[in-house]
């Protein structure tokens, strides 16, 4: 056992000697032994030839190329990078659009024009001016006391125009005239059949029945969502204004936002699926 272990130790020294990996002390000791021992020299030579045979092995050429492809290294295509933020962005846009739609809808149903965003652009309607013309303003300024339920056809047209303006311009600026108009209308037994007050009455509601701001206002019949689409626009351009001077909800805006929300939701869903797929 000891002899075998000693032989292994000698082989280790011979192997390291061939590689020039012996320390000075070990090298000197081994070289002295090699000088004196012929068998040891033979073993060293056998080992040297064995190593030479292994080192002389030809280099084996690769049987094929080992070029890497993007799929091998798990790299995504460059075009896919934007998709990582596209899905969350679409989701956020959907949420914002839906929220905006709800705000507009609830605001209009509650009758609070102020609930609408101040920056919401007015929806243009064919044939309806978006801003008050100088002539209209002059009419308001020169108007006298309100007439006593003697509206002419011209006055009816003026009120119709006013209702349309209020309809497309859902801000609080037009509230006093509307309230005045409603107050004038509430003085009749059948508001729906009563002719609207003249424009002058809308501008200067003095002498008319007063209406407190806290008093509930009958906004008339509110169109249902099913009536929105094309019928609403038709109503705005051809039909008379809503009865009792009510403020119709901005259905085109609500409808547009609904469609936008739906489109964004679908896009968002597709984007998430593409991102995961």
């Amino acid at each position: 056992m000891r002899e075998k272990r000693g032989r292994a130790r000698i082989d280790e020294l011979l192997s390291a000697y061939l590689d020039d990996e012996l320390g000075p002390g070990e090298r000197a000791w081994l070289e002295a032994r090699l000088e004196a021992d012929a068998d040891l020299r033979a073993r060293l030579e056998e080992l040297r030839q064995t190593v030479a045979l292994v080192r002389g092995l030809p280099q084996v050429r690769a049987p094929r190329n080992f070029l890497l492809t993007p799929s091998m290294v798990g790299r995504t295509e460059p075009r896919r990078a934007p998709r990582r933020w596209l899905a969350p962005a679409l989701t956020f846009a959907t949420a914002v659009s839906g929220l905006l739609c709800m705000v507009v809808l609830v605001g209009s149903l509650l009758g609070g024009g102020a609930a609408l965003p101040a920056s919401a652009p007015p929806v243009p309607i064919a044939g309806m001016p978006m801003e008050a013309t100088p002539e209209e303003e002059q009419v308001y300024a020169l108007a006298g006391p309100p007439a006593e339920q003697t509206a002419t056809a011209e006055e009816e047209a003026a009120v119709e125009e006013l209702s349309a303006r209020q309809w497309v311009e859902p801000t609080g600026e037009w509230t006093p005239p509307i309230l005045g108009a409603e107050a004038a209308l509430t003085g009749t037994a059948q508001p729906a059949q009563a002719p609207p007050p003249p424009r002058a009455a809308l501008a200067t509601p003095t002498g008319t029945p007063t209406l407190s701001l806290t008093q509930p206002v009958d906004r008339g019949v509110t169109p249902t969502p099913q009536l929105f689409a094309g019928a609403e626009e038709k109503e705005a351009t051809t039909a008379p204004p809503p009865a009792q001077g009510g403020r119709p909800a901005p259905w085109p805006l609500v409808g547009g936002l609904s469609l936008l929300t739906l489109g964004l939701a679908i896009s968002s869903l597709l984007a998430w699926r593409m991102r995961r797929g």
Partner: protein
Amino acid sequence: MDEAALIRAAQRGNLDAFNELVLTYQHRVYNLAYRILGDPAAASDTTQEALITAYQKIGTFRGGSFCSWLLRIVANRCYDELRRQKRRPTTSWEEFGEVDEEANPALVNGGESPEESVERAELARFLQGAIASLPADQRMVLVLSDVEGMDYTEIARTVGVPVGTVKSRLARARGRLRDLLQARAELLPRSYRLEDRDSQ
């Protein structure tokens, strides 16, 4: 583009640049895998996996010899493969030696006579079989030292063992290989027949 520029480009994720390095070193990488594993198919698989690993880790390369760095990765992959194969029965000395020359055309030197070519191919098969019959830890160290020419320190770092262990494993591997060669001396070229030289 020189090697340093290719490495920098590969570190920035340029796969084409890395493939240029692959083309440069793939034969050496495959050769190391083949000598350690002793099987062309396993060597191909391991080479491909090692190159993928190298690409994924090239950001950790901090200079020095890129070839040595690459060979260390290959050696480690081979070591993993050998450990995985450890449960399999070891190839016996009598069963080894069936290396497919067509899969390894470099084993045949085109400048030799047919007899010399056959003799050389037979010697290469013989040696490869002898190496393949060594225990995995000894084979690994022998190939890294005598095929790849690494020094003991580099081998120790690659295999993850002390230099003293490298020294003893290499000595045992060489001693065992010497014994195998002496047992089949008739296959060796005349100049390598140790007993002939001993008898003279």
